[in-house]
């Protein structure tokens, strides 16, 4: 789900992270609040596609993102289709997918450290509430770094279980994953200390 930065030189890449985040947040809000009119939904699709083209990522990338969201779409449709009119269901799905694709457009065109810097600046007023924006920003970066690691652990455990012919049991999966995640957290804490973060 976490799409990482693709180097490029489009308008989108050059737009500073702060304003870009604000624009995308405003667009996401507009998309979420727009009435469920077919022409507005079509407009949303055009807007998102236009964004991907403008960023030089192409529609193929948008398509790839869409494909990773397929299960979300299935869950949304199945859970709503019996209770809501078809048009509302379509509108809900389009809204959620559009917002996620817009958010990914930001991560695809912004270096993580620029993004984190922008968030750090935005959080600066919270200093008065004893929130340390630097720490929040670091935590965000580390979360992004750690997700693929934990996913890797999950794959390792599945493989180990398959290799031993153990049937897939949720507990036998969650417990080792938790242990590995905690061990990883310990090691990462040492690495942070060693690199001068206290």
């Amino acid at each position, binding site marked *: 789900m976490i799409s990482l930065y693709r180097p490029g030189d489009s308008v989108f890449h050059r737009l500073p992270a702060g304003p870009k985040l604000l624009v995308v947040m405003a667009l996401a809000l507009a998309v979420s609040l727009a009435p469920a009119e077919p022409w507005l939904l079509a407009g949303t699709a055009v807007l998102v596609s236009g964004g991907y083209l403008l960023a030089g990522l192409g529609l193929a990338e948008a398509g790839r993102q869409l494909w990773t969201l397929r299960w979300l779409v299935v869950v949304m449709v199945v859970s709503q289709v019996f209770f809501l009119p078809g048009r509302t269901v379509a509108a809900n799905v389009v809204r959620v997918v559009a917002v996620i694709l817009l958010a990914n457009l930001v991560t695809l065109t912004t270096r993580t*450290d620029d993004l984190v810097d922008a968030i750090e600046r935005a959080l600066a007023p919270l200093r008065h509430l004893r929130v340390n924006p630097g720490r929040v920003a670091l935590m965000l*970066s*580390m979360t992004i*770094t750690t997700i693929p690691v934990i996913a890797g652990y999950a794959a390792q455990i599945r493989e180990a279980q398959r290799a031993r012919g153990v049937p897939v049991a949720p507990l036998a999966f969650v417990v080792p994953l938790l242990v590995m995640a905690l061990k*990883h957290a310990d090691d990462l804490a040492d690495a942070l200390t060693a690199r*001068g973060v206290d």
Partner: protein
Amino acid sequence: MSERAIVLDNVSVDYPGGRTAVRELSVRLNERRIAVIGSNGSGKSTFARTLNGLVTPSTGTVRVHGLDPTRQAKELRRRVGFVFSNPDTQIIMPTVAEDAAFSLRRRGLSRAEIAARVAAALERVGLSDYADSPAHSLSGGEKQLLALCAVLIGEPGLVVADEPTAYLDGVNSRRIAGFLLDQMPQQLVLVTHDLRLAARCDVAVRFDGGRLVDQGEPGPVIARYERDQDLA
């Protein structure tokens, strides 16, 4: 020579639960390449960790290049870089260049300076092509090179490496070892089970049961270690 001295005086490290990892260790080392050998649980990792304050001695004093790892921790960690065994747990930032740049934060450098230093450091370890790649897409050997790069970019005076080749295949071990032992100008403390690497150092110290039991020219120290292993 004295400015790169590592001096431990009567150091003991007790872990919670009563296990003593290092006992009454007194040693003075100022060679450029120092090998630390010994079996698992002999205290060599704990010794390495006291050198940058990851482990605080229960008694005794440590001076690394004149600094006290406990009281001058911040200064010392700029002076001492630490390379861990597991390449996966040393990567803090999402992409290669960002992770290297992470070591330079809060040093009052401009963005341009940081970018220039990162580019030079990645070039040195041969990772320039991966600057914007997700760090976790690298192979194990490349990750370890990145970890090394992230340490060297801070221009430490001493690099402590705790079994840096443990997770690597032969080719990558040689790459990392070559870098640490031959290319890098810094003083090196190399904790290793690979006795061929230990043999390439200027001095070897051997730990056993939390005590320093042997010290001197790597050749004879390693020979005695191997003989004792055969006897056991």
